[in-house]
């Protein structure tokens, strides 16, 4: 995966031609609703993942790899809740993807982002609790976004299976950014509900097609996933549970300052771009909002979402070194092992 190049023009024209042919941007959802399709689209099926090298990786996975065209890949994964009131998010993402890419490349300075999109539902009752695309450097992820089934309907359950996304991040991703350069990717989940506390053995088998001996808690999945990902949860304040302190606190305990509240979820792309820009350059919220080119009310909403992150320990001061203290690595005798 990961060839090609993001092209704003192609994106726009593909969309225009769908419009003119009367095809919905989310025509796969239309097909599922009308009974013409009944399964998760193959390209998004986590069970169809493969393990490229079982001597290195325990599970099947999605890969974000460098290529000649993209030598410094940095993965960006975005998972959203496709149930209930959050169903409009993919449409927003789709509309604003070009801008998101522009900001990540031009402002944040990541030359080769690779974007993966995915969706989570509720594994305890939804038919399509987990859908996951590929890491793409070009328009293909827009295409996969279109194949995602929007469960719509329902809503109001208070719990969603976000932990499936963290299971994916922890066990089913391999990235050159991390393996070659120790560089963490960016991983976003977005929704308006609370997370189920764990992924059960049954869910692992049903969703990922793997057999495990024991359930995994969301905390331990996050601990593992955070080794190679900067993970954020974006909470839609305009969703079903704007004031539910219990839900907010649950997320805040898990994520601290990386729990980001967004007042207007249609600004999710701006917030994601802002977070990446801020993390990459350790800039404050004012500078970031200005760099994205926002003004007025939009700027205020995005800035408010980003403020808790600025001045936090997540932002790491950049430094330079002179001398050999950082480079005269000796053969190391010591080390740590994964448990």
């Amino acid at each position: 995966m990961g060839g090609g190049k993001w092209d704003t023009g192609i994106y726009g024209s593909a969309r225009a031609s769908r419009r003119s042919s009367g095809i919905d941007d989310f025509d796969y959802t239309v097909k599922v609703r009308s009974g013409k399709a009944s399964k998760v689209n193959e390209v998004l099926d986590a069970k169809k993942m493969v393990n490229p090298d079982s001597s290195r990786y325990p599970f099947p996975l999605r890969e974000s790899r460098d290529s000649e065209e993209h030598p410094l890949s940095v993965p960006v994964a975005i998972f959203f809740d496709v149930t209930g009131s959050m169903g409009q998010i993919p449409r927003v993402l789709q509309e604003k993807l070009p801008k998101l890419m522009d900001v990540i490349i031009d402002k944040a300075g990541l030359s080769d982002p690779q974007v993966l999109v995915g969706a989570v539902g509720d594994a305890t009752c939804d038919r399509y609790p987990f859908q996951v695309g590929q890491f793409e450097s070009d328009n293909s992820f827009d295409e996969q976004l279109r194949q995602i089934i929007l469960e719509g309907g329902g809503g109001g359950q208070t719990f969603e299976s976000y932990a499936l996304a963290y299971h994916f991040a922890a066990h089913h991703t391999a990235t050159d950014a991390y393996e070659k350069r120790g560089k963490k990717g960016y991983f976003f989940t977005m929704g308006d509900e609370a997370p189920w506390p764990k992924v059960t053995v049954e869910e692992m088998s049903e969703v990922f097609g793997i057999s495990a001996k024991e359930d995994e808690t969301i905390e331990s999945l996050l601990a593992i996933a955070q080794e190679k990902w900067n993970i954020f949860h974006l909470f839609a304040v305009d969703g079903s549970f704007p004031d539910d302190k219990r839900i907010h606190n649950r997320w805040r305990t898990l994520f601290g300052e990386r729990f980001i509240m967004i007042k207007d979820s249609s600004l999710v792309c701006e917030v994601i771009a802002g977070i990446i820009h801020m993390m990459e350059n350790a800039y404050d919220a004012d500078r970031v909002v200005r760099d994205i080119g926002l003004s007025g009310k939009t700027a205020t909403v995005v800035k408010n979402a980003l403020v808790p992150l600025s001045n936090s320990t997540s932002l790491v001061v950049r430094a330079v070194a002179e001398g050999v203290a950082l480079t005269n690595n000796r053969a190391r005798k010591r080390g740590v092992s994964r448990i």
Partner: protein
Amino acid sequence: MTTALEVISEKITTAKRFADVFGEIRSDDVAQNLRKLRKQYVYMVKFIHPDHVSKEEKMLANRVFANFVGLYEQAKDALENDSYEIPILPSNAQGMSAAAQDSVIASSSRKYVVKSTAWAEGDFSDIHLGKTEDGIPVFVKIAADPTMNQYLEHEVLMYMSMDTSSKKNVVQYIPKLVDSMFVDLGGNRQIRVNVFTYQEDYVSLTKIREIYPNGLDPRDAAWIWRRVLGQTITAKMLGVVHGAMVPDHTLVHPITHDPLYIGWAHTVLSFKDTHAHLTTCIDRWKNWYPKEVFDHKVPTHKTDLYMAGKTMLYLLGGDVVHNHFPKTVPQQMQRIVQRCVEVNSSKRPESGYEVLQQFTDVIYKLWGKTYRPLVMPR
């Protein structure tokens, strides 16, 4: 917060090559190269020209801009003479004088001079001694490679999360985290660096045991283990499980007997509702970890106590794997340690504080309150 001016100022003062400031310019066409340089020059001037910055930054901008113009002229010459790739002399000779063998790590706001050779090897970092600009001694943990950055990041996170309010009496035994940075290595690689205050003359239990290869006199091990228990209690008071209570991570002062508690990079929060597991174990201390850790159970205060018990066996020169003590160790002492290293965590004592009290009673009965300086040959 760092401004563009500060970033560029930093770039100029630390540049080793023209490309560090103006970017790579490599074509064979000199005129095109000069145009490219000019373009980058014009672009950067927008951020640093004294007319384009805030009032507060005017002074800095005057200085930076003058240096920048000088560097631009040099770069122009270099392009014309095909010497653009040749290293330039660092322009920051002013300020701190770093000895030839020292290294300098500088962010936009702070600067550290550190020894180029490591003082100690950690499990995922090298530890270098150094000083701040004000001459305050620090130790600097430098991730061994970028994949180890995560541990230093976690350490910072734990320092921020530990509930230190109103706990001055225990916090004083933990080195203060003074800074954390990403140092650019080039090639889009960054190394994480954490800086802590350094106190001289403290020695790790590993060092001590190396000097006493057959184990310590139980009377020496006794006061040292009281400090180890103190570390488990400190962790509990701060709302965390230390998670790596191994001999490297407890330091003591041989004369004052004060402890220094380090190694908080494996720590997990133990607040209600968190169920974080330990995800890594330190290879050379594998025997210190209780079964529950490998069984992916949530670690508790009792996990720390188990590891503290193993450390005592090690100090006394016992068999750490099978929990056998040398015969010279008094039975009462053995019994207390033995309870800590029970495989079944429910059989271990509930609290380190309770163990400390019992243990203190036992050693006072055995030997009274006598002070024994620890002999540490230099």
